[in-house]
């Protein structure tokens, strides 16, 4: 009936909801981290700029007070000290060689007068000259030959020369890199945790919905007494369950009404029919001559046809409303067909017809025995009435795409092409048919009431073909 197997997780709604929720959560937290990162980076820059400006002032004073010949040694000392100790955010384990700080003095004409630092300072001078560095405004400086850019502060001293103090941004970048690494790790953990929580809760909630859907699908054509499970919570899901149950109440009550109507209709018609039939029969037993008996006998036969018509009409009407009452029992179609063939075979061969069964063995369905008996008798009666002599009816019974499939195929003239599209409607019959035109509508009604299907077509060879399918009995 329903596919009870769990759907793959990737196709579940819980998975999709958690995916989207996690995406939104991840974007939000990422934005927060980007903002924090910026804030921290700016703060580090500001602190290091303040330090740089202070130091360049101090070095400016030193340069002014120290005689030119002693200045170089003094500066080397100062810069080495700066590089080793006082640089903010300094990595203590870094190599002793000083490539993080440089000092540069230019004369009034812009030529290099004093250089302390790694290399000869030519590249640094070139970079400084290429960019405008204003006093008291530390500036970003990229120097050829150095992978990491510098932050450079400058000041002008009394003799008209400029001094520059440069600090490598390496340590600053390293701090930010560490920060980013931790941020990303934390972010990933948060996102995973968030995904887990969202997935778990939606899955739990949706499992209720799935239970409701499964229960609702089990409440089939005939089993209207069952209800979907409700939960203790007062949420949307329990509202859904309650609404479904109320709807089922209404369907059940209208179904009950329909049954009451058809039952009382049947009862109200059958009682007078019984009385009429009984009286006719009594007069028949008293009637002496055959010529008097004949009209009475044919009246009784008409009455029986009327009764049969009444029964089938009500069955078809109920089945059209999906309200046919079924008393389901396990039924072996193979065995039933053999008994039916046994019953019909003599009549068929009297008419020169042949009946062949091709069956792959026992095939159990859950069905209403009496209805299935009448349905198959109907199909056989049809063949018997409409097929010309020396035709063969092939019956094929097999399991096909998970259901029981029964096809009747004959090599007769086939269905009238005008009638074919309306074959399963009420009151449709071929030109030469003397039935009341309910036969195939009844077959269709019974098949549908059992969750099956019926279709009719003409074979390529010209004969009629009726295919029925029923769900197999559950294991």
């Amino acid at each position, binding site marked *: 009936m329903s596919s009870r197997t769990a759907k793959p997780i990737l196709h579940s709604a819980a998975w999709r909801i958690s995916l989207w929720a996690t995406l939104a959560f991840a974007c939000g937290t990422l934005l927060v981290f980007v903002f924090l990162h910026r804030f921290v980076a700016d703060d580090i820059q500001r602190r290091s700029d303040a330090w740089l400006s202070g130091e360049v002032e101090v070095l400016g004073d030193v340069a002014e007070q120290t005689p030119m010949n002693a200045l170089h040694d003094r500066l080397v000392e100062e810069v080495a000290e700066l590089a080793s100790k006082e640089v903010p955010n300094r990595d203590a384990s870094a190599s002793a060689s000083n490539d993080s700080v440089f000092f540069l003095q230019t004369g009034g004409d812009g030529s290099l007068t004093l250089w302390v630092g790694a290399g000869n300072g030519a590249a640094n001078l070139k970079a400084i000259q290429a960019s405008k560095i204003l006093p008291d405004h530390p500036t970003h400086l990229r120097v050829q030959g150095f992978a990491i850019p510098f932050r450079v502060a400058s000041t002008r001293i009394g003799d008209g020369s400029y001094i520059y103090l440069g600090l490598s941004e390496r340590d600053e970048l390293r701090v930010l890199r560490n920060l980013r690494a931790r941020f990303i790790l934390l972010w990933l953990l948060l996102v995973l945790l968030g995904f887990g929580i969202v997935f778990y809760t939606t899955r739990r909630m949706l499992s209720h919905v799935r239970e409701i859907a499964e229960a609702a699908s089990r409440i089939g054509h005939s089993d209207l007494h069952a209800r979907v499970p409700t939960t203790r919570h007062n949420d949307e899901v329990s509202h859904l369950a309650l609404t479904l149950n109320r709807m089922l109440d209404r369907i059940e009550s209208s179904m009950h009404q329909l049954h009451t109507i058809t039952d009382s209709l049947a009862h109200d018609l059958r009682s*007078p029919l019984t009385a009429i039939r009984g009286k006719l029969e009594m007069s028949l037993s008293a009637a002496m001559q055959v010529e008097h008996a004949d009209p009475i006998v044919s009246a009784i036969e008409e009455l029986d046809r009327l009764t049969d018509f009444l029964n089938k009409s009500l069955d078809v009407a109920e089945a059209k409303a999906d309200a046919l009452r079924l008393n389901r029992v396990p039924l072996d179609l193979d065995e039933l067909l053999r008994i039916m063939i046994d019953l019909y075979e003599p009549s068929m061969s009297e008419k020169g017809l042949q009946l062949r069964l091709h069956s792959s063995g026992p095939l159990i369905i859950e069905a209403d025995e009496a209805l299935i008996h009448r349905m198959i008798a109907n199909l056989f009666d049809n063949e018997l009435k409409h097929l010309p002599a020396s035709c063969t009816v092939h019956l094929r019974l097999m399991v096909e795409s998970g259901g029981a499939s029964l096809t009747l195929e004959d090599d007769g003239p086939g269905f009238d092409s005008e009638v074919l599209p309306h074959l399963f409607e009420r009151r449709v019959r071929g030109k030469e048919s003397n039935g009341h035109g309910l036969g195939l509508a009844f077959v269709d009604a019974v098949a549908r009431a059992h969750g099956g299907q019926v279709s009719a077509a003409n074979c390529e060879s010209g004969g009629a073909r009726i295919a029925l399918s029923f769900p197999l009995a559950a294991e």
Partner: protein
Amino acid sequence: MRLLLVEDEIDIQSFLRTSLEETGYEVEAAADGKTAERLAVDGVFDILIVDLGLPDQDGISLILKLRQLGVRAPVLILSARRSVDDRVRGLEQGGDDYLTKPFALAELVARLRNLLKRNSPAGSDATRLRVLDLELDLLRREATRAGQVLQLTPQEFVLLEYLCRNAGRVVTRSMILDQVWGMRIQPDTNVVDVHIYRLRGKVDGPGQQPLIRTLRGVGYVLKDR
């Protein structure tokens, strides 16, 4: 044979009473459950006919109540309902029978006889059946007429056995379908008749007294005298 007829439709009650009395039953009739209860307890009945739709109570409740009061007689249930109640099936398994309205009188009479015979202890486990010069060996599944073995198919044997068990009594087409093929259907073709013609061709040979008689519009009977 005393018969209690419980039926509220006066029309049906009166024709049933008349035709059953013609058949030889001594009929008492009740139009509701209460009267039926009183009659059933006061008198002794061999068989009961109970309609399911009584004005004061459900026919099945009445039957169950009568069973509790010690009424052992078999019941033929009449029903104008569309579906057969599970409880009716239960009663059917307990030895009672049911018939849907409208029915043929012959069918009713035949089913009554059948019920009465089913409830009488004799002859049910015999291994041989004998009707005039027709003899059935139920163990060897072999039938002979005047000493000549009849070539019957297994299904024909079952049909003949059913006729023999009811020899002298009318069996209807629906009774044959019900008892021999186990289905309650009303084919609008003559499937049962063809079976009977074939069987008659084998049982009633040329020059022999015909045993299987057709009663037009009613059914068949296997003559026992």
